[in-house]
């Protein structure tokens, strides 16, 4: 496993350069480019949020980052390990370094909550005594604010959506990873539980220095937790509207994106942007306008 050591590498939890991925469309019998030279960096010890419209390739990118899919071209580094396509394989050693919170939770329904959390520990750290593993499971449950006395021996099927999400997070934390990937962490949760999960994500970054990469389109949550936000956008050909792959359209801190005047950013962020866009001519201007300053049409705006 090659490790590319440089000051820049050591600062980044993830470094992606010029990533390309295409799928073969069996209906049109043509190759469809999904990711078109996507490049971004997620800093260590920070929360990086990846956002984009439905179907823009977020899930494809997510699968490439967790090693379940291989890109066609480009460079991918995870915590200093080069896992670029055509290079060193995505080994178990690399996968041990990060945890994953899947959108559905992905708990084993045939195992208790405790056994679900213990599973990766028993798999990857067999030298640990069973009593130690048991206590670790209880600690993880406390970290996600679940009482082990109540939850450790429950089956996943009796848990609420929020409880399942917390147990999944406890399992993602099992091996004390330095990086956690979150796939739509707030999906299906009520606002109160969603805010609790957001706070947990922030606490984990702050206290345990766990870098976080979050895929979401919940803007409330994104603006609450993000240190950096990246907007992915389906790119279209100039001469028609054919999709020519997704690009990184804009990126910055939440404040920087609120003040971005890039048209799609303003449209995507909606009420979270400090600007509005005329839907007729796509001119970006201050919010609250009655008539577009460019095309002079009456306000038909993205608020």
């Amino acid at each position, binding site marked *: 496993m090659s490790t590319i050591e440089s000051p820049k590498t050591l600062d980044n939890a993830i470094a992606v350069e010029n990533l390309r991925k295409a799928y073969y469309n069996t209906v049109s019998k043509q190759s469809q480019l999904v990711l078109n030279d996507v490049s971004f960096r997620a800093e260590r010890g920070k929360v990086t949020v990846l956002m984009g419209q439905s179907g823009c390739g977020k899930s494809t990118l997510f699968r490439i980052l967790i090693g379940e899919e291989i890109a066609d071209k480009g460079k991918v580094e995870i915590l200093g390990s080069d896992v670029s396509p055509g290079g060193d394989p995505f080994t178990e050693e690399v996968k041990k370094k990060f945890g994953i919170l899947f959108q559905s939770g992905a708990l084993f329904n045939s195992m208790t909550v405790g056994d679900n959390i213990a599973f990766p520990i028993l798999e990857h*750290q067999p*030298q*640990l*005594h069973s*009593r*130690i*593993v048991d*206590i*670790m499971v209880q*600690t*993880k449950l*406390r*970290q996600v604010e679940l009482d082990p006395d109540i939850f450790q021996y429950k089956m996943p099927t009796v848990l609420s959506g929020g409880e399942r999400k917390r147990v999944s997070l406890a399992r993602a*934390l099992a*091996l*004390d990873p330095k990086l956690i990937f979150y796939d739509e962490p707030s999906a299906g949760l009520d606002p109160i539980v969603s805010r609790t999960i957001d706070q947990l994500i922030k*606490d*984990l970054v702050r*206290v*345990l220095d766990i870098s976080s990469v979050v895929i979401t389109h919940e803007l409330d949550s994104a603006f609450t937790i993000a240190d950096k936000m990246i907007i992915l956008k389906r790119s279209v050909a100039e001469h028609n509207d054919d999709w020519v792959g997704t690009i990184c359209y804009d990126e910055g801190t939440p404040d920087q994106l609120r003040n971005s005047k890039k048209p799609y950013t303003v449209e995507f962020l909606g009420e979270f942007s400090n600007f509005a866009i005329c839907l007729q001519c796509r001119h970006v201007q201050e919010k609250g306008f009655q008539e577009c300053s460019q095309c002079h049409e009456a306000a038909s705006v993205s608020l």
Partner: protein
Amino acid sequence: MEIHNIPIDGGVKVVPMSDVDMTSSVDLRKVLQKLVRQKPKKLIVSLENVEYIDSSGLATLIECMQECLKYKGSFRLVISNSKIMEVFRLARLDRNVFQIYKSNEEAEK
């Protein structure tokens, strides 16, 4: 992992000399379990040289504390590093679980 055992008045102080992770916690556990079998009145673990402790390290300390409680021995931790203290806080172990002291002098009284 290098671990120092220092006799103190009424017991023993254990001082891990580096970080406690899933590899080194096994060594720490061996030392602590051996000491606990001797049932010292006072067992102190000083984390003064520890910059990082993971959940296996926390679990090792919890297990030792529980063993001490069984024979009514005293188990104390010395934590002077605020980041280590935060780890205990996030794991809800900073209150009503361990006796935590900021210095060796306070812990040994």
